[in-house]
Every structure is written in structure tokens, then in C-alpha cells.
């Protein structure tokens, strides 16, 4: 599409009217530049995809394959944020345009597409990834070609890259507040840890176990099941015999649905809290698949619930529904994905430049007072200070917030004494 206008103008046979139109288009373009932000040469010294009135970023999520279930919400949130930023006049006078690539739930594909976005498209930042596996796959690419990734998912920690801003919570933020709460408020003494068998649940349960033992309490069982496992009757029997006060569940994906349905069918009524169930892996998104009536009464510890009452969130939920339909639900990760473009915007404006190195230097200390979850701030370690909340699942698929930490939880991706 890069037609050289002067060549066209010189071509014989073009009518004068066409020349006039072309000239006015050029004039209009020139005048936009005149009223817009600082000149491109100043804000873009490394050859990113920044023009006088646009800046291009990448969106890299799975919209096909098994992870599409989870990542769709993130894509929707990022597009909403981009639209809102553009409606406000863009960043440094430039509208955001995006190139969306599909990671297809396949980690090598993620790496390949990340390289395409950084090397061919020269995007100024990338909103993307969901699973830890996909993030690990793109990490070398972002570090080699010096890109900037905004990663939305709560995850296991143990990572801190200069090329990633982690907008979800790392494990200790979610876990410690949650366990402290059940111990203090519910008098829990014994825990049964349960998870899907991969790095996030295992690392998280390791932190949980350390913390529980540090409090002088007892873990009576710890179990892992392969991803996609659909038969939980055995572990439910085991739970029934061990009689823990708390089931601490980090089951993910389709297994979640099987687990909660079978728990209910086995006669364990979560609303009675005997045992109480605390999870860090079930957002409102997952409840749609599980069915509210099957998980009613369970507690979840995370930083965001759709039902949060603050004004920011009311406006966010309203805008989200206007853009994507009334029957949509918004989970923790979706909200974190929404923060990505806004945090990037704040960093670019603080740096006065789109250059990756300057944006990185400007990022720590960035605050958002307009976040749906409330106030967040970027830590030196590229994670966010944020509050942790406890929600109780209701039959209609929403959480009722029953507790929130008084202070922001400090992100601590390499927790001393927990490894």
C-alpha cells in the first residue's frame, strides 16, 4: 500500500480534480501533524512503528485452540482500553493502532508471532500471553529484540524481566493474604492442597504450604492431577476422610468444571463451609463453565471481582458491556489485561518518548488511580502493588466481596524463605 504520491501525480492522464483531492488530503494530513504531539523524530529514535499521527502496538493472545476460552476476555479488555485511549486523543497526539496475532494455544507459535511483531512490524509494545508457558516461550524473543510485553495473568512469580510488565498478581500476593484471612476469620487449622499438575499450582502450593507451616498449622494432604483430568471422585473421598478445615484448590481449565460438579454431586455443600473451599484459580469467567449453583459458597482470593463497587469499576463494567455485549462477565485477568495499555500510556507520557528503554526507565513508580480494581502502582520489580480481596461465589456466577486487605500488597516475585 505504499504508493508514492509524487509518482502518481506525475503520471499523465490524471484529471485535475484528482490532483486537487490528493493535494487537499496531503494538506489535511500535514495540518493534523501541526496540531498533534511532538515530532516523530523526537519521540521515536529507534525506528519503531510510530508515524506522525499513529503508533502501532501488538496484541498477542490465543483466539483459537484450547486457551481461547481464557484469552478471549483479555483481548476484549485490551481493545476496549485502546479504544478509550484513542477517544481521549491517543498517546502523545498519536492514535493507537494494533496488529493482532493469534498464538493459537501453541507456545512455539507465540514465539514466532512475537518475533514477527517486534522485527517486521516494529510494534512499540505488545499486550499479550496468558499461560506461563507462552510467556516463557516469548521471553527470549522480547529480550533479544528489546520489546515491551504487558502480561496480564496472575502467575507463580520467580521471574522478573526488564522487558515485561506483570499486570496480574504474582503468587505471594494472592496466597498469603488469602490464607491469613481464613486462619484469622474462619479459625482454619488444617488444609488440603489440591492442584492441576504444572508449574503454577505446584509453585503456589509450595508457597501456601510454607506459609501454613510458618503459622504452626497443618497440611493434611497435597494432590496434583494432570491437566484435563475429569474424574475427581478419588480425591473427594480422600478429602472426606481427612476432614480438613480448608480445601485449597488450584485446579484449572476444563478440570475445574469436573471438580466442582463432582464435589457437589458427592454431597459436599460449599455453602456450609465444612470444609471451606478457597481457590485462586476460579474467576467469574470460569464460573460460567462450572455453573454458579455448583460452586456457590466457595471463596476466591484475587485482586479483582466484577462486583467491586467503586466508581472506576462501575464505569469499566458499563463500557465493557456496551462494547462486548450484556451477557459478558469480567474476571481478574481481564481487568489486569485492561490495565496494560493504560500503564503503557502513562509510562510513555512520563518518558515523553516511545523508545523502549525510556519507557522501561519511566515505568517504576507509575500510578493508575483510574484502575477498575482501585489504585495500583508499578514496583521496581515490574510487578504491581495491589490489594488482595476475598470474594464468595454466589449462585448467579458473581462474587460477593467479603474482605479486602487494608494496604496494597507488595509484589515479591522471589519470596525469601518460601522456596
Amino acid at each position: 500500500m505504499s504508493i508514492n504520491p509524487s509518482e502518481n501525480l506525475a503520471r499523465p492522464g490524471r484529471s485535475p480534480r484528482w490532483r486537487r483531492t490528493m493535494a487537499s488530503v496531503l494538506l489535511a494530513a500535514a495540518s493534523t501533524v501541526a496540531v498533534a504531539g511532538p515530532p516523530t523524530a523526537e519521540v521515536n529514535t529507534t525506528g519503531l512503528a510510530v508515524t506522525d499521527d499513529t503508533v502501532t502496538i501488538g496484541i498477542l493472545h490465543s483466539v483459537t485452540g484450547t486457551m481461547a476460552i481464557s484469552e478471549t476476555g483479555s483481548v476484549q479488555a485490551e481493545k476496549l482500553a485502546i479504544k478509550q485511549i484513542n477517544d481521549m486523543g491517543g498517546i502523545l497526539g498519536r492514535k493507537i493502532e494494533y496488529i493482532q496475532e493469534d498464538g493459537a494455544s501453541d507456545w512455539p507459535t507465540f514465539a514466532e508471532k512475537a518475533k514477527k511483531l517486534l522485527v517486521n512490524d516494529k510494534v512499540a509494545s505488545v499486550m499479550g500471553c496468558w499461560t506461563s508457558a507462552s510467556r516463557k516461550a516469548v521471553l527470549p524473543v522480547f529480550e533479544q529484540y528489546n520489546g515491551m510485553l504487558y502480561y496480564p495473568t496472575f502467575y507463580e512469580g520467580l521471574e522478573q524481566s526488564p522487558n515485561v510488565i506483570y499486570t496480574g498478581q504474582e503468587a505471594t500476593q494472592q496466597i498469603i493474604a488469602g490464607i491469613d484471612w481464613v486462619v484469622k476469620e474462619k479459625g482454619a487449622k488444617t488444609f488440603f492442597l489440591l492442584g492441576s499438575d504444572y508449574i503454577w499450582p505446584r509453585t503456589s502450593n509450595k508457597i501456601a504450604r510454607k506459609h501454613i507451616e510458618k503459622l504452626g498449622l497443618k497440611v493434611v494432604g497435597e494432590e496434583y492431577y494432570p491437566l484435563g483430568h475429569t474424574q475427581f471422585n478419588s480425591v473427594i473421598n480422600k478429602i472426606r476422610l481427612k476432614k480438613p478445615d480448608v480445601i485449597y484448590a488450584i485446579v484449572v481449565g476444563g478440570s475445574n468444571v469436573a471438580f466442582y460438579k463432582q464435589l457437589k454431586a458427592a454431597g459436599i455443600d460449599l455453602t456450609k463451609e465444612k470444609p471451606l473451599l478457597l481457590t485462586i484459580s476460579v474467576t467469574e469467567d470460569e464460573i460460567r463453565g462450572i455453573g454458579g449453583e455448583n460452586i456457590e459458597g466457595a471463596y476466591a482470593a484475587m485482586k479483582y471481582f466484577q462486583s467491586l463497587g467503586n466508581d472506576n469499576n462501575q464505569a469499566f463494567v458499563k463500557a465493557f458491556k456496551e462494547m462486548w455485549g450484556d451477557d459478558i462477565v469480567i474476571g481478574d485477568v481481564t481487568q489486569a489485561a485492561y490495565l496494560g495499555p493504560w500503564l503503557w500510556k502513562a509510562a510513555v507520557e512520563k518518558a515523553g518518548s516511545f523508545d523502549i528503554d525510556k519507557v522501561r526507565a519511566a515505568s517504576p513508580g507509575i500510578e493508575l488511580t483510574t484502575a477498575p480494581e482501585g489504585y495500583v502502582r508499578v514496583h521496581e520489580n515490574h510487578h504491581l502493588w495491589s490489594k488482595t480481596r476475598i470474594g464468595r461465589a454466589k449462585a448467579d456466577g458473581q462474587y460477593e466481596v467479603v474482605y479486602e486487605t487494608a494496604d496494597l500488597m507488595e509484589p515479591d516475585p522471589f519470596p525469601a524463605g518460601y522456596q
Partner: protein
Amino acid sequence: MFDGYTMSELGSIFAMQGFAGLILFSVFVLMALGLAIIFGQMGVINMAHGEFMILGAYVTYLCSNLFSTYLPGLFDIYFFIAMVLSFIAAGALGMLVEWSLIRHLYKRPLDTLLATWGLSLILQQLYRSIFGAREVGVSLPDWLMGSYPLTETIEVPINGIFVMVLTVLITTAVYFLIFRSGWGRQVRAVTQNRIMSGAVGINTERVDRLTFGIGCGIAGIAGSAFTMIGSTGPTAGQLYIVDTFLVVVFGGAQSLFGTIASAFAISQSQSAMEFFLSGSMAKVLTLLTVVGILMLRPQGLFSLKIRR
């Protein structure tokens, strides 16, 4: 291994685990039956089996929405209607697939493998386009979701019993269809000698199409029943396909009895091991045992003795 449990607890453990194993057994049989019919009678490896199951699950989802909106009075029994419709939908799709795709590939078994795998990808994307990428929640009548307490520690999930009864009914029906009906005799004749069957006047093409359709239809019923215990999403079929193949291959591809025996062996050993070891280890040990036995007996536990 047994420490920390009293004798009476151990008693309930074995009772409960035995029951959990029986439920798993029914689930396995229900999953594998359709595949075994197609694989055994026609030699076609249907990689899209899981997607036919999910078709049944989506039909159930549509029915549950339909009934709760328009016929709330009949919601308690919608599940039976949904199962019938699932059978019809999956069976019809199966016959269509057989007519348009499989029948051209009968002499090339490896190609049917690839073709049906491609079909599974197409169906997954189709579900995703129609129903969205997210999982859908199927609401069930209340009477299906409770449990029946036998003793203090032993509780029997009602949906487990439902699946067991359903499995017994369908297995019996399949048995009579194949071993006691005229159509079944034709199927068995075609399996043993296709050319000769054609020569004596059996319409082999029609038999093939019906067999494929019934196999897929049973997968549809299984998918419908599994909305009680599992998830319904575009890729949920993949969760079942490995176990299904395991059961069919281990049992001996051409024997219905073998399928049932292998489902029983795998489910009981897995559920017993799951209790005393961790879930992932149980799976590893089950797979290792199956691989070991298949090395000694490549034809599976049971196999038909037919002249080749």
C-alpha cells in the same frame, strides 16, 4: 500407605473407592462403546470421536436453555429428551461424514486417521464460532445433582448412578443390536468378508453408513451424559479421547467384551491407585501397565479369531 486410617475408615475407603471405580468404569464404557463399534466393525479410527461427544453436550446445552425458557414445567425431564436429540444429531452428522468423507477412504486406514483428525479440528473451530470460545454451563435438574448418604462417610452421587444405569442400558442395546438382530448379522458378515457379503446381497455401503452413524450417535449420548460430570467447551472432547483410545486398544480392537473388560481393569486400578498415590502418579502407573501388557499382547486383551 495405610497409616493414619482406622479399620472402619479403611472399610469405607474401599467401599467408596470401589464405587468411584465403578462410576469411572461406566464413564469409560460409555465413551469407548461408540469408538469400539466403528473401529472394530469397520477398521476406521475415528479421531473426531471426542467432537461427536461434544456435539451431544452442546445439544444438551441448547435443550436446557430451551426448556428453562419455554417449558420450565418439563425441566425435570428435559435430560432424557436431550439425550435422544443428541443421539439423532450426532448420528446424522456421523452418517453425513461417512457419506462425504469416510467411504472414499475405506482401503486407506491411515488416511482415515488423518481425515478424521482434520474433521475434529474443523468441528472444534465450528463449535467455537457458533457457541464462543468459552465453556458453557449446562444447568441440570436438581434431582440429578445430589447425593444419597449410605452411612456417615459413604455418600453415593446420584449422577454417578445415573451414568451407570445409562451405560448398562446402552451396552445391552448394542449387544442385542449386533448379536441378536438381522442388521447386526449383516454388520458382522461385512466385517468378516466384505466381498462375499456383497455377493450374497447385503448392501455393504448402507451397513457401513448405519454402523458409523450409530457409533457416533452413542458418542453423542455419552457427551450428553457427561455434561453432569465434566465441562462443555469447543475443545473438551480432547479431554476424553486419550482415555477412550486407551480402553479400546487395550481391550482388543474388535471385541466389545474386550472393551468392557479393559474399561473395568483400567478404571478400578486407576481409582485404587489414585487414592493411595497422587493423581499424576496413578495415571503414569496405569499407562505403564497398559504399555507393558500391550508389548506382550499387541492384539489387546481379547481379539476375534478370524482368518485373514
